[in-house]
């Protein structure tokens, strides 16, 4: 079984880190993983995205044109990538910055005001963690607590950010589970 | 009314704030509205104070601000 998650947004939204945390979690719980970044000349601004491939067998192609899931943190990335997501996958929409919807009836689309929630919690920087938690909670792609562990490890050394991010994790899950399953899912 | 027009092309502006800092009349401010590029552009918060000295234009790395004579423009 192989599954792929694409994280996409503005540069500076912590997209790559988001994917790295998921990949790290999956590795810890024993999956084969690959994290593939987009790297381009405009290092800053523009859209950044990365793909995380999680599988129980050695991973073949690291090039994924149709990911199983999408976490879209800004409008351009939703517009660009929603159409290529495989049917039945999860599409997470960062409601705070994205006024539109994926328009896909064959996926589990969840609206999470990640940026808004993070702001309330004290820093927009945590928006990516909110989204990650929401996505993991919804997709169940990896054990939720393992993901929490990974985040804790990541912030080992930067303890003062830990509470914020732990709060982000809980808030993320909450907002994801509040929502009704889409019919199709 | 002034004989000059001070225009800020919002989508060219990257919200760096350099112009805000150099304006002798403190006319400019960063807006809260993100532009299509995802930046928060400047706008003339106090247009009435503007003396059309072009200092902001000179400082802007993105040629986002232009000054034109209104007559000149009428001709065009």
């Amino acid at each position, binding site marked *: 079984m192989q599954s792929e998650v694409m994280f996409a947004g503005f540069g500076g939204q912590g997209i790559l880190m988001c994917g790295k945390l998921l990949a790290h979690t999956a590795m810890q719980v024993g999956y084969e993983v690959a994290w593939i970044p987009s790297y381009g000349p405009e290092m800053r601004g523009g859209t950044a995205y990365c793909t995380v491939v999680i599988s129980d067998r050695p991973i073949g192609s690291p*090039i994924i044109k149709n990911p199983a899931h999408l976490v879209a943190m800004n409008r351009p990335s939703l517009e660009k990538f929603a159409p290529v997501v495989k049917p039945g996958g999860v599409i997470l929409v960062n409601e705070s910055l994205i006024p539109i919807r994926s328009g896909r009836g064959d996926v589990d689309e969840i609206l999470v005001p990640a940026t808004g929630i993070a702001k309330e919690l004290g820093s927009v920087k945590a928006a990516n963690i909110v989204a990650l938690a929401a996505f993991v909670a919804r997709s169940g792609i990896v054990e939720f607590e393992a993901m929490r562990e990974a985040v804790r490890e990541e912030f080992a050394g930067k303890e003062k950010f830990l509470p914020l991010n732990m709060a982000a994790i809980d808030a993320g899950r909450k907002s994801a589970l509040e929502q009704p399953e889409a019919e199709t899912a | 009314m002034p004989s000059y027009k001070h225009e800020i092309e919002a989508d060219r502006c990257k919200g760096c704030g350099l112009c805000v800092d150099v304006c002798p009349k403190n006319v400019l401010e960063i807006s809260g509205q993100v532009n299509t590029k995802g930046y928060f552009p400047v706008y003339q918060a106090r247009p009435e104070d503007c003396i059309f000295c072009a200092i902001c234009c000179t400082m802007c790395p993105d040629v986002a601000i232009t000054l034109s004579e209104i007559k000149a423009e009428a001709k065009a």
Partner: protein
Amino acid sequence: MAKVLMKGNEAIGEAAIRAGCLNYFAYPITPQSEVAEYLARRMPEVNGVFLQGESEVAVGYMLFGAAGAGERVFTSSSSPGVSLMSEAISYIAGAQCPVVFVNIMRGGPGLGGILPSQGDYFQSVKGGGHGDYRMLVMAPASVQEAVEMVMTAFPLAEKYRNPVMILGDGLIGQMMEPVEFPEHLKSEPTKKDDWATNGMDTRQSATRNLVKSLYLDPEVLNNHNLLLKSKYDRMKQEEVRYESYNADGDYQALIVSYGTMSRVCRTAIDHLKGEGIEVGMIRPQTVFPFPEKAIQEAASKESCRVVLSIEMSMGQMVEDVERAVLGKRPVRWYGKCGGEVPTPEEIMKVVKEHL
């Protein structure tokens, strides 16, 4: 040792240190600058040498000097940077110094682009520099394999007193995958007292050593070249490495592909199997020496109707595949070059077209 999730570029830097190479000279270039950035932090921790040279041309000769003095040394660069090292590589091969080069290929020619490519196959395998020399060239298909190839590169470079190149593509450098650093691949640098300019006192010898590539007498130079040739012939005997995939049973087509490209092919082969189409693959792990025999045998299999060389280049490796197959089967090329990695779907389509 537990697995760690690492970016290919950083894993490559760490692998060199684990292999016992504490000297690194390089010039930044996308998509492999993280090797230098990682080692700028790590080398001081292990009392190693990190130096950003002023150019790839200079770096090439810093490596030459350091290797000539008997120390393990390596560098990493990407396509245009490697072109600038080609004179140095020719000198290093001529003077028989062990140096490890890592080329994380990007799109070319010229400035090209910064995304993954395999356009430097000819440059690395046939020799970008002048004169009769070869590099031993290994092409990893995963971060883990990159680590292992880097670690084995140093003893190989010393075994043959010849430059060794790790030929990866941008994805190998940019991807994160779980890696382990195998203890057993650590190696002691070989003694170099018989040739290195490490100082007569150091080796308690009264005779000086020379590190050079000039041989004005044509007969002597010819013999020197024959000596080099004998090393390359020996590599062909002893160092050929490849992996076959789905090649035990019958197959209608044989794919030859290496590096990241081969992983895409593997996925394509799995899908084709699902559709009832059997395709075998030979993945060269060394592109010089090239697994000629293996490919010829695999191509000769009754059921095999066509051989496909699938590369992220405009038809480079395919020439070696043609030489290997010797006309026994039609050989076709498919590839893209410039950063686009062909997808499994594309490969499947191409395979079907040739059946």
